[in-house]
């Protein structure tokens, strides 16, 4: 028995070692690839309905929290440029010119495609699903067995 305990301990230590050397490695997730991007500068153009550039238009940029980030006026070509911060989310640009108003949202800032759930939670979720699936299967088997036993019982009583 002591020999077995030693082997079991070695196996556990070995797996811990593997986990230990693998998790902090930066290239550890070579099996799913993700894209991240950073919008450095946004240039908006403001036009009138016919296509003419709207000069001197008041432009207000709101960050994803809804706070005013920057205000300004479009140049001679109806353009206005700003540099969003790294704040990810929907930036809102509002242009106002002589009573006309246009609004546009821009996905800006640093975007990292990540579902936000930490790895250990995803592992736990997966194992949880498995326990659930197995539980349902076992429950179903038990129910079926019970029914069969009941049928056998009835058959034997009928005889």
């Amino acid at each position: 028995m002591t020999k077995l305990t030693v082997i079991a301990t070695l196996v556990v230590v070995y797996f811990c070692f593997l986990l230990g050397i693998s998790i902090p490695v930066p290239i550890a997730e070579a099996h799913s690839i993700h894209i991240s991007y950073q919008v450095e500068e946004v240039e908006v153009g403001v036009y009138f309905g016919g296509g003419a550039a709207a000069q001197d238009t008041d432009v207000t940029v709101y960050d994803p929290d809804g706070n005013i980030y920057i205000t300004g006026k479009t140049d001679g070509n109806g353009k206005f440029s700003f540099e969003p911060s790294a704040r990810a989310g929907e930036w809102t640009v509002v242009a106002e010119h002589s009573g006309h108003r246009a609004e546009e949202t821009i996905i800006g800032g640093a975007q990292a495609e990540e579902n936000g759930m930490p790895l250990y939670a995803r592992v736990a979720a997966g194992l949880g699903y498995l326990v659930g699936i197995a539980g349902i299967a076992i429950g179903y088997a038990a129910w079926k067995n019970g029914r069969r036993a009941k049928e056998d019982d009835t058959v034997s009583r009928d005889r």
Partner: protein
Amino acid sequence: MHISDGVLPAELWISGTVVASAGVTYVLAKKTDAAEMPKLAVVTGAMFVASLIHIPVGETSIHLILSGLAGIVLGLSALPAIFVSLILQALLFQHGGLTTLGINTLIMGMPALMAYGLFWTGMKSNIARKHALFGGIAGGMAICLGVCLLYLCLLTIGVDPEWLLLCVVVPHLVIVAIEAIIVGGFAEFVVKVKPEILQGYRSVELG
């Protein structure tokens, strides 16, 4: 050993899905004992988590697969176990993809069944330390065959064979060695402690 969505041509992943789901359905309906469910779930869980154990090799990183282990422990039921663990990996780790579930199940599942056959054949022999020996062979060969299947799959879509050889096949040789040791050691250990949980052992030695 995961092929992602959108890599394979439709006829390949559709036929993979059809064949794999037929296999999984058949095994679940006809060849799986309900009493085996907890064991099936545990092995599925092990495979699901094993893919997180990464080993950096050169510029790429590879991970444990444990298809050979699933084969010797579960026998034919390795197929549904692999299928479920791939679903969970695709959904939770973004490994592989949902359209390629079928083809990935075959790439891992067929070697698992082969590992079962190998181990089962080995158990009939009278070689000393046959459990560790054939466990190791089964574990290693499962990865070898899996990589061969993956290689063929990726060749058909025109991936550069030389690149494949260097970046996919060669790094997996490390996994072949590691899994041979793991599965061999596992088989030796389990045969001593609780041999009846090995399907490959049970069908020979315990009738």
